[in-house]
């Protein structure tokens, strides 16, 4: 039986239009010069230009910002996944003293409002000399990406039967061999989904990234906010930068789209 009723299909269609319109507008703005934007209102850019995109790709402030963002996102993802893997494994396989409490405590960090940690983070990272480095932002983002990674990985690993562990032991494999050569390959898609979510939450965050960086490690999202206040409203370049920040997300989601539904089905997001 077809569960898709006519009404819900129309709502879906309407919602897609609602989703696309602001994105379309961002794109047209990015294709127009500032004088053009201020002067006339038009639905289709009549004299499209790539000058705004060229500005982003040639101005070091912009492309450095892009590189800074990518470097802390990658660092964060590496740290989060590598510490979360063993933890998720033991949570899915063993009962131990305080396991449920620990799991809950980890989760509360996912829920903690970043605004609460603003000041102490600034002081903590300044005092150990990490302020204004990508590593500082990567570590700060671990606050929510590590609990999230443990949470997602544990959900997937619990679904892997423990018989596999026993069989590897009977076959005489060492634990290390079992974990790296047998267990991790089985959980490939789980790791994929985890990487996706670490990437996502680190990429979209602004508040901590802004607080922990000065001029050296300034991420692209921060460059965007400062450009607005400094040189008046450079709408065209701002929109072009916006387009560039949307692209990595679309790419990532295209690659993990099948695993994504499974990840959501576990309700572990």
């Amino acid at each position, binding site marked *: 039986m077809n569960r898709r009723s006519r009404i819900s299909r129309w709502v*879906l269609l309407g919602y897609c239009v609602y989703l696309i319109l602001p994105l379309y507008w961002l794109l047209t703005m990015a294709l127009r010069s500032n004088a053009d934007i201020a002067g006339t209102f038009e639905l289709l850019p009549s004299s499209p230009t790539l000058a705004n995109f060229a500005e982003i790709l040639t101005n070091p402030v912009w492309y450095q910002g892009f590189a800074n963002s990518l470097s802390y996102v990658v660092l964060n993802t590496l740290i989060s996944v590598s510490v979360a893997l063993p933890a998720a494994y033991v949570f899915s*396989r063993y009962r131990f003293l305080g396991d449920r409490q620990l799991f809950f405590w980890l989760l509360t960090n996912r829920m903690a409002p970043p605004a609460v*940690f603003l000041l102490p983070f600034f002081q903590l990272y300044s005092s150990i000399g990490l302020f204004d480095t990508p590593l500082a932002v990567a570590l700060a983002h671990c606050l929510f990406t590590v609990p999230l990674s443990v949470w997602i990985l544990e959900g997937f690993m619990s679904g892997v039967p423990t018989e596999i562990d026993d069989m590897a032991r009977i076959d005489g494999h060492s634990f290390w061999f079992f974990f790296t050569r047998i267990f991790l390959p089985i959980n490939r898609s789980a790791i994929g989904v985890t990487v996706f979510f670490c990437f996502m939450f680190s990429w979209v965050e602004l508040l901590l990234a802004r607080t922990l960086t000065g001029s050296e490690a300034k991420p692209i999202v921060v460059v965007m906010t400062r450009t607005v206040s400094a040189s008046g409203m450079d709408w065209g370049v701002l929109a072009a930068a916006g387009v560039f920040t949307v692209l990595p997300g679309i790419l990532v989601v295209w690659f993990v789209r099948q695993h994504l539904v499974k990840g959501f089905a576990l309700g572990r997001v």
Partner: protein
Amino acid sequence: MAQNKVKDNRAWIGVLPVLLIVAFSGVIPLMTVVNYSVQDILDFNTRFFVGLEWYRETLADPRFVDAFLRQIGFSAAVLLVEIPLGIVIARGMPTDGLRASLLLVLLATPLLIPWNVVGTIWQIYARPDIGLLGVALNELGIAFNYTSEPLHAWLTLLAMDIWHWTSLVALLAFAGLTSVPAACYQAAELDGASKWQVFRFVELPRLKGVLVIAVLLRLMDSFMIYTEPFVLTGGGPGNTTTFLSQYLATMAVGQFDLGPAAAFSVIYFLFILLFSWLFYTSVMRNEDES
């Protein structure tokens, strides 16, 4: 959690790295905040112990109470729109094929846009002079201006949040729907159930788990909202769209009122903790049942 688990306290070795890193990025800062919240800090060498003074002051501060009430109003509005809308969208999704993949990517796209860019997109989109939405509304004869009219600012923020986050609810509900066995639909059809009855008695009970998660995630995340209103309205006009996080950030970084900001943080954190506990117990109960 899994069925036949072995009891072994050596498992702590596996959790240790996570423990260390989260302690570093979570516990130390939190303790610093608690420490600040009971002191009056004039500069970093002159400080007095003031006990619960800041807590009393914060809870009695009309601006805190206002921001809190606005926050509740906003979160409630967000939930009331996004949850039903998300369910309807999920029911309209095709289950396979290229169209399904493209729709999934489109739905997931807003979730992956940096939060300040979401604010920027909506700023460009809703401005009465250059924005598609702003100009269109003004053409229709509505004097729409979100920078001067509090009601318009609220509606724009709400529209933006719906744009940004309804996909999350829709994707969760969609994942929940894919787990409904086809046999259930066939049985319902044989019984001559109406569309509404199918939804109410076949789908909704199986969606309960994911919906609880969707509600709590949206509740908690909308409770922490900061970046999007910061970019779009800056909390204005006046203070009409200043929510908790923004008020806190102004206090802590803008005015450097360490003590009161810390007390504020602790109170804020306790609320979030309460939500987290509700979230955790409901997820775990859900897993124990299944």
